[in-house]
């Protein structure tokens, strides 16, 4: 017997949390070059999105193919503030001057000059949009594939809107050349490290939050809604509200990730938030293990890392590999890599133990 399995779940959670903190805060900064560390910062932003998708899709069965929308809302809210701060009080951001279509700052840009408003907006704006769409859609019991298609259509509409309004959103280019982050110069490697530490801290905090949520009564209810929505309804709960919470929380996480992505990478553009990136968020979660807590994080980082490593040298090969990952993992290993350990262990032991709740239902996913 593995000695680790004898510990109580709470102790194991603390151990894991501590290990994660050591890796992210001590090992990674010590071992990686500044360039690698800034790449890791980017991957961790994707990992934050993945935590939210893991909650909504893995636990709640809500396949959201439009997380890019929320990532983008958060990213644009942050980038708008940083652009305004770069330009200085009373000036317009450089790209608006460049296009020369506008005489003054559009009214809906103005509030983002206020840092408190902008920071709040990075999280609240995505949550508001998710609340609006979610409450309309879930209340009317639009679900399963229908919901997935609607969420994807939202991503398509958002991108077309952003590209169409070039004068005020930067169009296809997006918002680029972001230089400062609340007074800190982003060209300075020390400040880039600071941004990395903020992202890592946010990821750990959100993981802790998500673990609490998954282990709470609400978490149980969410899994119940995923597996048998009708039964939950007959028990007197309203499944629409249960789903709504998961969807809104996931949207908030994606928004926060987008906001942190902007100082880490220095750009936000429609190409980063459209249909394709939105579904790429999902593949990391699927590879890692959708219903596990850490699966989505590790999967997102691994897939993003593989993409960087492969797509530069062999862009074609990467696309095939990405497609093959979707096919193989989703079709034949729906629990993701996180379920491999359990599968191997079960095969080795003579009498198979009862599978964990989260796993058993994944084998035969609920019909929509």
């Amino acid at each position, binding site marked *: 017997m593995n000695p680790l399995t004898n510990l109580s779940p709470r102790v194991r959670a603390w151990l894991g949390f501590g290990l994660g903190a050591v890796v992210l805060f001590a090992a990674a900064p010590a071992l990686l070059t500044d360039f690698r560390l800034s790449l890791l910062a980017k991957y961790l932003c994707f990992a934050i999105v993945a935590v939210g998708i893991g909650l909504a899709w893995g636990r709640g069965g809500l396949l959201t193919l439009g997380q890019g929308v929320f990532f983008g809302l958060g990213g644009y809210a942050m980038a708008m503030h940083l652009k305004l701060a770069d330009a200085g009080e009373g000036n317009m951001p450089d790209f608006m001057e460049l296009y020369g279509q506008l005489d003054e700052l559009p009214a809906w840009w103005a509030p983002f000059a206020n840092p408190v408003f902008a920071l709040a907006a990075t999280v609240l704006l995505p949550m508001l949009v998710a609340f609006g769409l979610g409450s309309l859609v879930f209340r009317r019991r639009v679900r399963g*594939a229908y919901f*997935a298609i609607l969420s994807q259509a939202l991503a398509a509409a958002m991108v077309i809107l952003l590209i169409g309004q070039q004068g005020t959103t930067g169009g296809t280019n997006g918002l680029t050349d972001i230089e400062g982050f609340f007074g800190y110069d982003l060209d300075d490697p020390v400040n880039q490290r600071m941004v990395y530490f903020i992202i890592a801290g946010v990821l750990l905090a959100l993981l802790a939050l998500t673990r609490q949520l998954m282990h709470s009564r609400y978490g149980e209810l969410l899994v119940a809604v995923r597996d048998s929505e009708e039964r939950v309804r007959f028990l007197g709960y309203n499944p629409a509200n249960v789903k709504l919470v998961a969807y809104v929380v996931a949207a908030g996480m994606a928004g926060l990730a987008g906001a942190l992505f902007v100082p880490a990478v220095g750009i936000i553009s429609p190409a980063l938030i459209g249909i394709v990136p939105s579904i790429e968020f999902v593949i990391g979660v699927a590879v890692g293990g959708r219903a596990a807590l850490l699966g989505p994080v590790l999967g997102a980082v691994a897939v993003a890392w593989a993409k960087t490593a492969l797509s530069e040298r062999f862009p074609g090969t990467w696309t095939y590999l990405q497609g093959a990952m979707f096919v193989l993992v989703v*079709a034949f290993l729906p629990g993701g890599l996180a379920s491999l350990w359990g599968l191997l262990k079960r095969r080795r032991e003579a009498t198979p133990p009862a599978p964990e709740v989260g796993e058993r239902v994944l084998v035969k996913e609920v019909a929509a």
Partner: protein
Amino acid sequence: MTVILGQLFTGVSIGAVLLLIALGLALTFGQMNVINMAHGEFIMAGAYTTYVLQQTITDAGLSLLVALPVAFAVAGAMGVLLEWALIRRLYTRPLDTLLVTWGVSLMLQQLARDIFGAPNVQTKAPDILTESTSLGADLSIANSRLFILGLVLLAVAALTAALKFTPLGRRIRAVVQNRDLAAVSGIPTARVDRLTFFIGSGLAGVAGVALTLLGPIGPTMGTNIIIDAFLVVVVGGIGQLKGSVIVAFVLGMLQAMVEYLTTLSVAKVIVFIAIVAFLQWRPQGLFTLRTRSLA
């Protein structure tokens, strides 16, 4: 007045293209509850089939006519292969099917890039389709759009007749209405599924041929249009065709009208909001099959 008529016809022709794509989806989604994200790549396959045929048959009109059945067969065969290899294993997991077929669509796009190159290619339309028919004072309609409209009407008529009068159609309807009961009545549901997939995917190939008349052929041509086609099916309601037919034209005209009054990008958003609002009223789509299921 002519402006409005012109916009209306633009809407009708947008709707016709949407419908041609959505017909195949309505068939497979309705029967098997399967979202096939690779449907867009079957469209692409149909378009590239037209391109390849035109390399050998230089007469533009003849190659277009030959391309219609060949593209149907090529795309249909790809659909059957996909159904046999993957989709039939995933019938109880519709959301996973969506992701798996997305993976397939990624690979097919890359395959097209490797075979035909990343830049778009063009086919030459027959002369008669590059002209316009003038209707009244200053209203004229491109013949290619009229051709597509005719093609769609033909496809709808043929499909409706096939579903209504042929033995295969009867079986398909039986499986759609109640799969278990159809199975115990001796209908080979697996074989019916495969044939449905052949027809549905084949129609995507035909849509691909039609799209070569409207624009360039490229590896990602299917990705963007497929979402609108899915929305048509969702709003039209699954299990029958008439909902998709009505919704495709209504959405096309709504899109054209709003686009005329505002801009393309605003029109997309307004159409999306209209769809969500419509689903508040009829969450199962315009028409639904009556079933006894709780959903």
